[in-house]
């Protein structure tokens, strides 16, 4: 019943519905990339710089080395989505952890946690990501961790606020009087109630993470073994006079994905926080 209500509210937001469908499509594309394009997307398969449509074998053309752009976009979807999801997971784990502890215990723990959050908000985020990636090396893991590290603060604040409002409710006090451990109260009692707004934020962090990753890769600091969309834009940059489509196509892919994720985030917001609906 509740679930139907959720879906109904979500579906009422037409944008969110369209966004969700498109994201699903991108996800399917990512999942079945190897089925559509079994060979390595970074393989040189044709003449370099073929425009989209010039050769029916390469509907989106080829890049400066003769790699199939469509294949790179499809395989890139996987890399891009995975980076977004994992980075968001890292941010959510850190954010929920810090926020929950801060909000539940309050006092000096809260003070320290919030100062730490402020600290991470103070350092310009992308600069921090670039420095981490350069210093620790351009691997996918490092990029994911770096993005997670700069993205956790809003989640922590949100979680903390939820915990602050929930920690003195009757059901929590009841648990406490029953002698339940703090850890169990946090994880099994408060957290489930605090999660809905956090999920909305996490979905937005996925979109942000994709943008971060694309900027890192665009600047040439990405992982060279991965056909990420940002890197494709960066690779095509020197050729904007002759073959600007090499830049344009992956950029459109990034934009659509991020747009849809934002729409889904809005929809989740509507569905999960009905009181905020008209904002």
């Amino acid at each position, binding site marked *: 019943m509740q679930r139907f209500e959720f879906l109904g509210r979500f579906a009422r937001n037409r944008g969110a519905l369209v966004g969700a469908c498109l994201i699903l499509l991108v996800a399917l594309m990512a999942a079945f990339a190897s089925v559509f394009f079994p060979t390595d997307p970074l393989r040189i398969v044709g003449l370099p710089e073929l425009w989209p449509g010039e050769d029916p074998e390469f509907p989106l053309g080829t890049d400066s080395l003769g790699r199939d752009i469509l294949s790179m976009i499809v395989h890139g979807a996987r890399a891009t989505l995975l980076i977004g999801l994992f980075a968001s997971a890292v941010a959510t784990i850190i954010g929920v952890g810090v926020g929950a502890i801060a909000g539940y215990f309050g006092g000096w723990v809260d003070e320290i946690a919030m*100062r*730490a959050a*402020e*600290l991470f*908000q*103070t*350092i*310009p*985020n*992308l*600069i*921090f990501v*670039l*420095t*981490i990636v*350069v*210093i*620790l*090396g351009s691997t996918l893991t490092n990029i994911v961790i770096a993005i997670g590290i700069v993205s956790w603060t809003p989640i922590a604040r949100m979680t903390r606020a939820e915990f602050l409002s929930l920690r003195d409710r009757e059901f929590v006090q009841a648990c406490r009087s029953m002698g339940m451990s703090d850890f169990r109260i946090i994880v099994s009692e408060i957290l489930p109630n605090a999660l809905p707004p956090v999920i909305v934020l996490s979905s937005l962090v996925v*979109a942000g993470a994709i*943008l971060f990753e*694309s*900027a890192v890769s*665009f*600047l040439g600091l990405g992982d060279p073994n991965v056909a990420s969309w*940002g890197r494709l*834009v960066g690779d095509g*940059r020197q050729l*904007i*006079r002759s073959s*600007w489509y090499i*830049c*344009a196509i992956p*950029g459109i892919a*990034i*934009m*659509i994905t*991020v*747009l849809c994720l*934002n*729409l889904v985030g809005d929809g989740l917001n509507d569905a999960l926080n009905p009181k905020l609906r*008209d*904002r």
Partner: protein
Amino acid sequence: MAGELASPTPALRGSARRTAALRLLRRRLIQAVPLMLGVVIINFCLIQMAPGSFLELMTAENQVSDPATVALLRKTYGLDDPVWMQLLKYIWALLHFDFGFSYRQNMPVIQAIWIHLPATILLMVSSIALAISIGVAAGVVASMKVRTFWDSLVSIAAMFFYAAPSFWLGIMMIVLFSVKLGWLPVGGMMKIGGNGGVLDILHHLILPTLALGLFYAAIYTRVMRSSMLEVAQLDFVRTARAKGLSRNKVTIHHVLRNALLPVVTILGVQMGTVLAGSVVIESVFSWPGVGSLLFDSVSSRNYPVVLGIMVLGSLVVIAANIAVDLIYMWLDPRIEIR
């Protein structure tokens, strides 16, 4: 003013407001100290984690192989001290505005940053100005014509610019306006060989400003729209309307001023992201600012400069936040010191 009279709490006035502002300023400045210390320590630790010392990279780059020279450089950069000593020395030097020496530019770090600062500030200021003016205007239009064609148009445009990566937007604008139409330069801050006339710089500023600013314009549009709609529901606005003031007058005098508050808040929070975003935009447009310097320094492992930019960047963010608090106070008289 009617709006203020209608406010829930009486406003602070005159000298009382001034002392309140000063108290706020003092408090914020004191809070900034541990924050800055944290920034310095985080960055310092990060650089300690780097595989290989920057000295190794530096000697490799300059092809210095003489052991005596290397030993001398080690001493110059204090690399023989224990790590905590290096950190203390660094903090001590920072207190004297000594950010270290950049071997690559062969000048003090602070000077290297200083040279690049005006270009970045120009880009940031113009982008923020663009973002606010577009954002506020579009947000107001959308909220006044809510659920009409104009509202949808604004919302769709905002969604697109919010989702488009700024570097990609920049490149696409170069393709259109520079390569295809030939109206605007592809990059740089002034004509090569030019001496930096104002018009020339403005000409070069247009595309980078758009690329960096439109993303924030999109955010402000969305925030402004929802904030306008929300404020319009508040009691004092209804009171003003009930008093028979015209719709436009109410909007401008009462709603707009109060609806600006969230925009100002976001602006403060985003100062850091604007600065960071300029790294990418400066790279796309060869804009000779701090972003370019950072990128060069990162790729030549010029850690003293990287550290210096991080610390200064954080300072800018803190300063911006304090400024926002003060502006907030000025915009919304209800707010006292939190």
